[in-house]
């Protein structure tokens, strides 16, 4: 089978029963060009980022008493947002902030409440609905609203499960370091033994497809996807970001991956600083790798919930409720902290312990998708985030 034939079949196989436009009978030409110029990257920060330490509400009189070591003894960072002081772990993003390409929203959350389980919290963050999501994520449901997309339009990157992109709409999934070495006969036999098992069949077919595509690109570009960054940053998160940028420079428009290490129960000042350095690396790598496309890119960094308003007995924080969302990219207007500040006095807290969420972060994601991809309000409130009241424009796009 030629490469084109198999790819067309693959697309058919992956989205079968989803939309008529995905019929294997259509030629690959129908999928050739991406539907939009704008790009959306969603980074899931697993472990519950402490929004109150990333964007410290130094203007709030209650902060110092709640966080004697975390806020009281903290060194100020290079980004000054007035009422809020940004954690010094993000100092390398100060130029991006100054250009208005990096910003934040405070006191937001998903509808998840009370049990404060990472795993349930992440499931709701990615499913995007408190109801039954049937194992589908909100980015996938967004893709389902646009008929005729190819699997290349959206990429889940890395070895971890990304529920946010799982679902009926075709999406690609790859880890930048993965290889697949097979003879042509080996490929045919693999297709044969996998034929009756859709899970194995589709995963293998997509792996072959991506390997072929990357090889073709490498031949064409002589060096391929290497060389997107300047090579000074290291780590798995940098490789994920480089790979994401390489896909988004081409036909992909959506990418999602995760960065771990935010669960700072103990000695938070060290752990959170390291996590924020990784996030800075990631955003700088995306910016460098995307080149001119950065102007048309929105990056949303979301986490399952915030952490307790007060620091705990071990210079860390425990699981909380309201938190912060960070955003970046030339398509968004940053350089500021958005959101309605609820205050930190005991009566203002959720459950007298956590930052009170004043807005559902799905509304921000919804407005960004509306702006980037022209989705209408009903589509977002019914299909992407069922049951969400989108509300007024929070103004991330300017």
């Amino acid at each position, binding site marked *: 089978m030629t490469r084109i034939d198999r790819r067309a079949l693959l697309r058919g196989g992956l989205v079968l029963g989803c939309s008529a436009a995905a019929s294997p009978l259509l030629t690959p030409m129908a999928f050739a060009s991406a539907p939009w110029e704008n790009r959306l990257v969603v980074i899931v920060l697993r472990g519950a980022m402490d929004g109150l330490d990333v964007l410290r509400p130094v203007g709030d009189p209650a902060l110092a008493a709640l966080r004697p070591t975390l806020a009281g003894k903290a060194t100020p960072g290079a980004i000054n947002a007035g009422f809020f002081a940004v954690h010094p772990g993000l100092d390398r993003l100060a130029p991006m902030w100054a250009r208005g390409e990096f910003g934040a929203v405070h006191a937001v959350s998903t509808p998840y409440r009370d049990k404060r389980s990472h795993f349930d919290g992440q499931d709701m963050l990615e499913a995007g609905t408190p109801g039954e999501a049937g194992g589908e994520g909100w980015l996938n449901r967004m893709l389902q609203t646009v008929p005729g997309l190819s699997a290349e339009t959206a990429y889940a990157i890395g070895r*971890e499960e990304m529920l946010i992109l799982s679902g009926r709409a075709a999406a690609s999934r790859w880890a930048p370091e*993965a*290889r697949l070495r097979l003879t042509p006969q080996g490929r045919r036999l693999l297709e044969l033994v996998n034929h009756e098992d859709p899970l194995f069949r589709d995963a293998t077919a997509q792996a072959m497809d991506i390997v072929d595509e990357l090889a073709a690109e490498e031949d064409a570009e002589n060096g391929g996807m290497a060389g997107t960054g300047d090579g000074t940053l290291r780590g798995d998160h940098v490789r994920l970001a480089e790979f994401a940028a390489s896909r988004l420079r081409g036909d992909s428009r959506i990418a999602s991956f995760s960065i771990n290490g935010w669960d700072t129960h103990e000695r938070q000042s060290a752990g959170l600083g390291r996590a924020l350095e990784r996030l800075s690396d990631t955003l700088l790598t995306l910016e460098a790798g995307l080149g001119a496309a950065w102007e048309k890119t929105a990056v949303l960094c979301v986490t399952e919930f915030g952490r307790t308003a007060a620091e705990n007995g071990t210079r860390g924080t425990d699981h909380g409720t309201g938190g912060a969302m960070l955003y970046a990219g030339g398509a968004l207007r940053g350089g500021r902290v958005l959101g309605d500040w609820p205050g930190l006095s005991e009566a203002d807290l959720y459950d007298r312990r956590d930052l009170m969420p004043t807005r559902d972060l799905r509304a921000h994601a919804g407005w960004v998708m509306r702006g980037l991809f022209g989705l209408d309000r009903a589509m977002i409130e019914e299909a992407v985030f069922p049951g969400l009241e989108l509300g007024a424009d929070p103004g991330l796009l300017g």
Partner: protein
Amino acid sequence: MPFDPTRAAIRFGTGLSPLLPPPGSIEAMLRPLGGLDEIGRQLPITPYSEARPTLAEWQDTAARWRKARGTPQEIATRDAYDVMRITAREVALRNFSTTLARGVAAPEGGLRERLVRFWADHFTVVGQGQRDQHLVTPFVEEAIRPHVAARFEDMLIAVITHPVMLSYLDQSRSIGPNSRAGRRGGGLNENLARELLELHTVGVDGPYDQTDVRELAELLTGLGWTIERGMEYRPERAEPGAETVLGTTFSDRASFDTIREALRMLARHPATARHIARKLAVHFVADDPDPALVATLETAWRDSGGDLFAVTATMLEHPQAWDPEPRKVKPPFDFLQSALRALAVPPATILHPDKPGTRGLFRRPLTAMGQNWERPLGPDGWPEQAEAWITPPNMAARVDWAMMAPERLLDELPDPRAFARAAIGPTLPDAVAFAARAAESRGEAIGVVLISPAFQRR
């Protein structure tokens, strides 16, 4: 659906082997569990209390080097530190390969090895770095393995009061705010209390709320450990007053006995029976198990007071356990282990994984398949759902291993047609039998058999 020896070895064990016959009956599967741990004695793993280098040795050796900086002893103390660092890494690798080899060599199908994996995942701990990377397997050997066919509450107490768990879930520094120590500073850390309810006992759907988490965190204060003395109870950190958890009020006299009593209450709670009955069925039988199977396990758990031998026996006696449809996908470790068993790779090869030629064929590929050994992302351990494992990048890593590793591990590859029957059993699908004949090389034929869903599912 009756007992079937092939399914017994594949679904509840570490796979088929051309050398070791599958168990002939449920009785034969259970017999080794009731007796001595033969394979554990043949292929020993040092338990935590005897494992070296100890954390105290790390501390002393590092301190001696630090103090010797700029003195004539600097080089000698640095060398001592390096020797220890290398030893710890070697011990960690040896622990991994022994765990792998036990399943490859286990008689009667390897049910004990599977149970140890299940419970080690249920009580996931993750090492923090080079100092304790070689101590996770010894924790499993000490706190989990002896209990897999005994009482759950004994395992729970052994695990929750173990230094490795106390360190991993930050219990050691949690201080009752109104305790003697607390009045001088410090405070609660609710990490262990939360995971104890959410993951280890009643489950996230269990009948608890934030108040129970808080009360349990207060009840657990005083439980801690030090590098020098291991686990210890420190009354000056214990929060005074009686705590109420899930409706049970415990003694207002804070003591280690009160903590043990609370752990027993959690172990015996009906929600724990429900939570873990379902987890067992999900792990061994189906991602979405038959409610009748779950209900039977839950009843067996409650009737036996959490006797894990009785619960395991009940699972094996349930007709759903023998459903011919293989609904589970082997996670990467089990895939590798069962492949090595089917290939009859000698334990000596597995126990020396750093030999030139076979280096990099065991632990590294697991990471590429999505299972970085002993380093899951959080205390909830590895995923169960087939879709979490069979993704394009992880599948590519399975293919790469299956195509390349067998040739490097064996002097001579088996006949692929015989291998296919030996690895998959009498239900060998026609397509796989055909592929084993039609491949252009032996290595590729063996690889295609290993990568077939018929081998990767169980």
